C-alpha cells in the first residue's frame, strides 16, 4: 500500500492532468489563450457539491451534471471569442474568472466566504484514475479527428482555416465547451476529495497554475500536458520536503520556472510533439552529431 501522503498526491496529479488536458485543448490546440480555467473547475465543484449536499443526488450523476453546467458556461465564455483575439480574449477570460469567484463569495447557497462544507468523501483513487483515462482518450481521439484538425488549423492560421471552409467560431466555442466540461469533472472530484470548497481556491492564481502546467509540458501536446501537470503537482511537494518555506513562494516558483522555460525551451518540454519511444531514439541519434534545423519563423 502506498502512504496516505502519496495517495493524496496521486489524486491531485490526476485532477490536475484533467485540468491541463482541457486547457490544452483550448489554448494549446485551438490557440485561444484562456486565463480563467479555474473558474470552470469551481463551477463543476460547486454545482456537484451543492447537488450532493443539498439535494442528495448521488455523487456520479452530480459529477456529470456539474461538468455539464461548466460546459454550458464554457459555451458562454467561448462566445466572445467571436470578436476577441489574443490579449483581449485573455483579459476577458480573466475577468470572467474573477466575476465568478466574487459571485461564489457572495452567494448564500455556496456558503459565501465560509465555503461549502459537509461534502461526503466520494472521490477515490479509482474514480480519479478512470476519469483521467477517459479525459485522455477523449482528448486524444478528438485531436486526431476532423474536429481536432480544424481546431489546430485555427491555431496555425485563422484566416486560412476559415478559407478552408472551417466555421472558426463554432470550433473555438466547441474547444471551450469540451475544456470546461473536463474542468468541471476535475472540480467535482476535487470537491468530493477535500470535502470543502472555498472561492479562494479557484482564483486567478489557480488558472495560472494550470496554464503553467500546459506551457511547461508543451502547448499542443497531450502527453506534454500530462507531464506538465504531474511535474508541477509533484515539484512543489518535493521541494517542500527540502525547503519548508517553499510553499510560501509557490507562485514565485511558477514565475521563475516560466521565465527559465521561455529562455531555454519556449515550446515547452514536448513542444507540439507527442512522446513515443521511437522519437526518443531518433532524438538521441540526432544529438550525436546530426544537426537538426530549427523551425523557420513565418
Amino acid at each position, binding site marked *: 500500500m502506498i502512504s496516505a501522503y502519496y495517495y493524496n498526491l496521486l489524486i491531485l496529479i490526476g485532477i490536475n492532468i484533467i485540468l491541463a488536458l482541457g486547457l490544452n485543448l483550448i489554448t494549446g490546440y485551438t490557440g485561444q489563450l484562456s486565463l480563467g480555467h479555474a473558474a470552470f473547475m469551481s463551477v463543476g465543484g460547486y454545482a456537484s457539491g451543492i447537488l450532493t449536499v443539498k439535494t442528495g443526488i448521488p455523487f456520479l450523476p452530480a459529477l456529470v451534471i456539474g461538468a455539464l453546467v461548466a460546459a454550458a458556461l464554457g459555451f458562454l465564455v467561448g462566445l466572445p471569442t467571436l470578436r476577441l483575439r489574443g490579449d483581449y480574449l485573455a483579459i476577458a477570460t480573466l475577468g470572467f474568472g474573477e466575476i465568478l469567484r466574487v459571485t461564489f463569495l457572495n452567494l448564500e447557497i455556496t456558503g459565501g466566504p465560509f465555503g461549502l462544507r459537509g461534502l461526503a468523501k466520494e472521490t477515490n483513487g479509482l474514480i480519479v484514475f478512470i476519469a483521467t483515462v477517459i479525459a485522455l482518450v477523449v482528448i486524444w481521439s478528438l485531436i486526431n*479527428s476532423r*474536429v481536432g*484538425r*480544424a481546431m489546430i488549423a485555427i491555431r496555425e492560421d485563422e484566416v486560412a482555416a*476559415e*478559407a*478552408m471552409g472551417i466555421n472558426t467560431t463554432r470550433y473555438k466555442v466547441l474547444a471551450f465547451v469540451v475544456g470546461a466540461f473536463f474542468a468541471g469533472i476535475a472540480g467535482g472530484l476535487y470537491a468530493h476529495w477535500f470535502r470543502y470548497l472555498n472561492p479562494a481556491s479557484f482564483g486567478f492564481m489557480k488558472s495560472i497554475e494550470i496554464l503553467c502546467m500546459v506551457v511547461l509540458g508543451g502547448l499542443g501536446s497531450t502527453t506534454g500536458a500530462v507531464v506538465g501537470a504531474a511535474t508541477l503537482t509533484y515539484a512543489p511537494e518535493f521541494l517542500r520536503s527540502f525547503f519548508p518555506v517553499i510553499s510560501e513562494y509557490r507562485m514565485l516558483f511558477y514565475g521563475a520556472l516560466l521565465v527559465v522555460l521561455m529562455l531555454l525551451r519556449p515550446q515547452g518540454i514536448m513542444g507540439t510533439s507527442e512522446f513515443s519511444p521511437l522519437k526518443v531514439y531518433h532524438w538521441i541519434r540526432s544529438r550525436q552529431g546530426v544537426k537538426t534545423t530549427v523551425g523557420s519563423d*513565418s
Partner: protein
Amino acid sequence: MPLLEIKNLTMRFGGLTAVKNLTMTVEEGEIRSLIGPNGAGKTTVFNVLTGIYQPSKGNAFFQGREICSLRPYQVTSIGITRTFQNIRLFGNMTVLDNILIGMHTRTRSELLASVLKVRATRTEEAEARDQARELLQFVGLAGKEQELARNLPYGQQRRLEIARALGADPKLLLLDEPAAGMNPQETSDLMELITTIRAMGRTILLIEHDMKVVMNISDRVAVLDYGEKIADSTPQEVQKDEKVVKAYLGEG
C-alpha cells in the same frame, strides 16, 4: 448566366479606394486572368469575393447567388476556394493534414462521432486519406505526406496550397500569383497543372504577374490599374492595348 458575376464592386480602405466600380464576369470552364501593376487591387478583389472584406459598394454573384454577405467558410462550402499570395499553409502540420483540412467541407464527422470513433467516422477518415493522397499525387507531391508543410521548398508549398484548395472540390478556383518565386521549370509545370485542373471541369480565376503564364493559358484577361478596370479582352488584344502598356511602363 456566367459562373461568377462581379457588379459595380467598390472597396475603400479609409481614404484609399482599392477597387473602383469593378464589373466583370467569369464564364464556366474558362481560365480568366486578372492582372495589373503592384497595388492595383487584385488581391483585394479576391478578399472581397471570399468574404474577408465587405465591399463598400456593389456585389458579386456566384451561379446567380449573392456572395458578398457570406462568411469566408460559407463561400468555400458553395464551391469557391483560393490560394494566398503570401503562402498561408498550416506550417506545423503535415502535408497530408493540410489537404485533409482542405477537405473539411466534404467531410462530416462532428464531436461525438469523432470521440466515439463510430464506423462512419472511420470509413470517412480512410476515404478522405485516400483522396488526399490522390490529390498530392496529382500536384506532384506524392511521398511527402508526412513532412511538415513548412519544411517543403517554396515551389512545392505553392503546389500544396493548390492541392489544399482543390480538396474542397471547388467549381471556381482563385489563384493569387501561383507562379511567384518559381523557377522557369516550376512555372511551366504549373501552367500544365492549371490547364489540367481546367480540363477536369473547374473554372479558374488567376492573378499573375508572370506574363508568360497569363498570355499562354488565359482565355480572357482583365487589367486593373489603381483599382479601375482599364482593359478586358483576349490575351492578344490586351497585350497591344495602349492603356495597358502605359500602366505597366508607368510602373517603371
